[in-house]
C-alpha cells in the first residue's frame, strides 16, 4: 500500500507559511518540537536540513532584510539606540505596522508615531525627535521635482503687491520643530563627529531638496513660523505677522531677520512660484526645466 499523498490546499499553505515566517518576530514563540511538528506537516526535509530549519531560512531573511532597510532609513536612530535596542524597536514596530504595500519606501514612515506611543526604550524622547527628522529627510528625498524661483523672478513682484503675494514652497520641503538639537545630532553622527549635548533644547529645522541633494538648516523660531505660514499658503504679509508673534525682539530686528531669511531661502531654491493676490497672476521661473 503506497504512502498517502499529502494534499494541502494552496491557501492553507500560504497562511501557514507566512505565519511561520513572521511568528518568531511577533513574540509568539514555539518550542523546537512544536516548530518541527508544524513544519513536518507541510515541508519535506532536505539531505542536510530538517523541515523547520528550511523554513527558518525564510524567517531569518524576512527580519534581517527589513531591519537593514529601516536601519538605512533611520541610521542615526540606529546609532543612538545601539544595535540591540534598534533591533528590538524594529521588531516591535513591525508587529504594529507590518508592511502592507508592494513598496518598501513607506515602510518606516510611521516609526516616529510609534516612538511617540506606548513603546518603552531608553532615550525615547531623543530617539523620537531624531526619527522625526530622518523621516522628513526621506519624505523630501522622494518628493516630486519642481521648478525653482530665482531672485530675478521675485524681483518682478511690485513692492505694492508683496504683502498680498503668496510664495509657494517647493514640494520637496518639510519643516520640523524638536525638543532636542536634532539637526546637530544627525550631522554629528553622519560626519562621525562628537555628539552635541543631548539635553532638551527647542530647535526648528527646514529640510529641502536642492539639485537632488537633501539639505537641512536650523531656523530661528520666528522664521520657522514665517516659512511654515508660507508653506500653508498664507500671504507674505500674513506669514510675517505670524513670525512676529514668535519673535523675541523689536520690529526692526524682525524686519532684518525677514529680509535676510527671504534672501537666503530664495537663493537656496525653497520656492517654486509666486501667486499675486486677487489677480491670480503667477510668476514662475523664466526658463522652466526639470533640472
Amino acid at each position, binding site marked *: 500500500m503506497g504512502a498517502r499523498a499529502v*494534499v494541502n490546499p494552496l491557501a492553507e499553505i500560504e497562511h501557514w507559511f507566512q505565519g511561520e515566517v513572521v511568528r518568531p518576530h511577533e513574540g509568539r514563540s514555539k518550542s523546537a518540537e512544536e516548530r518541527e511538528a508544524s513544519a513536518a506537516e507541510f515541508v519535506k526535509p532536505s539531505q542536510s536540513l530538517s523541515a523547520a530549519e528550511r523554513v527558518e531560512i525564510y524567517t531569518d531573511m524576512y527580519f534581517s532584510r527589513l531591519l537593514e532597510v529601516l536601519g538605512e532609513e533611520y541610521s542615526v536612530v540606529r546609532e543612538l539606540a545601539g544595535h540591540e535596542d534598534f533591533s528590538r524597536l524594529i521588531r516591535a514596530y513591525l508587529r504594529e505596522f507590518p508592511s502592507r504595500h508592494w513598496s518598501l519606501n513607506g515602510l518606516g514612515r510611521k516609526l516616529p508615531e510609534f516612538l511617540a506611543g506606548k513603546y518603552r526604550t531608553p532615550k525615547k524622547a531623543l530617539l523620537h525627535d531624531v526619527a522625526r527628522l530622518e523621516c522628513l529627510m526621506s519624505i523630501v528625498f522622494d518628493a516630486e521635482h519642481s521648478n525653482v524661483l530665482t531672485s530675478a523672478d521675485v524681483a518682478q513682484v511690485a513692492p505694492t503687491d508683496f504683502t498680498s503675494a503668496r510664495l509657494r514652497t517647493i514640494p520637496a520641503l518639510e519643516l520640523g520643530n524638536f525638543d532636542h538639537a536634532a539637526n546637530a545630532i544627525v550631522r554629528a553622527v553622519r560626519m562621525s563627529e562628537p555628539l552635541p549635548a543631548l539635553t532638551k533644547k527647542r530647535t526648528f529645522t527646514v529640510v529641502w531638496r536642492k539639485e537632488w541633494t537633501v539639505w537641512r538648516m536650523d531656523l530661528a523660531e520666528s522664521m520657522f513660523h514665517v516659512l511654515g505660514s508660507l508653506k500653508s499658503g498664507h500671504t507674505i504679509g500674513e506669514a510675517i505677522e505670524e513670525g512676529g508673534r514668535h519673535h523675541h525682539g523689536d520690529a526692526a530686528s524682525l524686519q532684518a531677520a525677514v529680509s535676510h531669511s527671504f534672501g537666503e531661502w530664495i537663493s537656496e531654491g525653497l520656492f517654486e512660484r509666486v501667486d499675486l493676490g486677487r489677480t491670480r497672476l503667477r510668476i514662475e521661473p523664466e526658463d522652466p526645466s*526639470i*533640472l
Partner: protein
Amino acid sequence: MSTHERGLSSAVFFGMKTQPTRPRFDLPNLGVGVGLRSQHYGFVVETKPSVDWFEIISENFMGVGGRPTWILEQVAARYPIVMHGVSMSIGSMDPLDREYLAQLKALATRTKARWISDHLCWTGVAHRNLHDLLPLPYTEECLRHVVARIRQVQDVLERPLVLENPSSYVEFKSTSMSEWEFLARMAEDADCGLLLDVNNVFVSSFNHAFDPYEYLSGIPMERVVQFHVAGHTHKGTHILDTHSGQAVNEVWKLCERACELTGGRSALYEWDEDVPAFDVVALEAEKARAFTGMRTAHKTGPKWERAQS
C-alpha cells in the same frame, strides 16, 4: 557522488547539442545588460557607459518622484530598459493588486520597457507583504491558480508577462510535479514568457538535489526571453541566492548549455549585495556575451542631450 555532482558530470559525458529553438515571442535580443542600481546612478548618467541595456527593479520607480525618477528618464532616453519586479506576487491567494498593475503599466509606457518580468512566487497573503520571494507548491491547484492570474495580468498589461524561475529553500510535501514541469505547463497554458535564471537553477538544484541539466532540458526554450546570471553564497547545508560576487564556473556552464538550447538570448548579470564599482559589474556581465548569440556590443544609444538648465 551527490545527485548535484552527477548532474554536472552527465552533461559532460553526453556532450548534448540541440538545435536552437525559434523564439515564441517577437522580442529583441538586447545583448548583455546590467541592473540599474542606486550605487551607480551618478556614474551611469555622467559617463554613459558602453552597456547594451539596463534592467530596473520596477518597484523602485513606481510611485516615487525625485532623483530616482529623473535618473531613470536620463537612462531610458539612451538605453533600452527592461522591467523586473519583485512584488507582483503572482502565486498569492490574495487578489491581484490592480493599482500595482496600473502603475506597472504606466512605468512600462514611460520607459518604453522592452518587456516586463517578475518571479514565480508569492510575497504575502492577508494583505501583508513579506518582501521576499516565497516558495510555491508545484501542484495542479497552484498551476491553475497561477495560469489564471498570469492571463489576467497579461490582459491588463496588454503584453506577455515574463516570469523567472525562483531559487528556493523549501519543498512542499504536496508538490506533485517538478519545478521545470510546472514552468513548462504554466508557460504553455498562460502563453507567457520565461526568464531563465541559471544561478537559481544551480542554487535550487543543490538545495533540492536535482540535476540542473535535467531542469534545463525540461524548459520550453522557445519561451525563454532572457537569462539571469549571478553569484550566490554557499552555506554548506544550503546555498543562498544572494546575488553577490562572481558567478561560479558551474553556473557559467549552465548558461552555456542554455545558450546552446536557445541559440542565445538577452543576458543580464545580477549583483545586488556588496555592490562594487560599475566597471566591475559590467566586466562580469561581459562574460555572458558569448551566450547571448551576439558577437559585439550594441553601439551606444541615442546621442546624449543635456537638459536645459
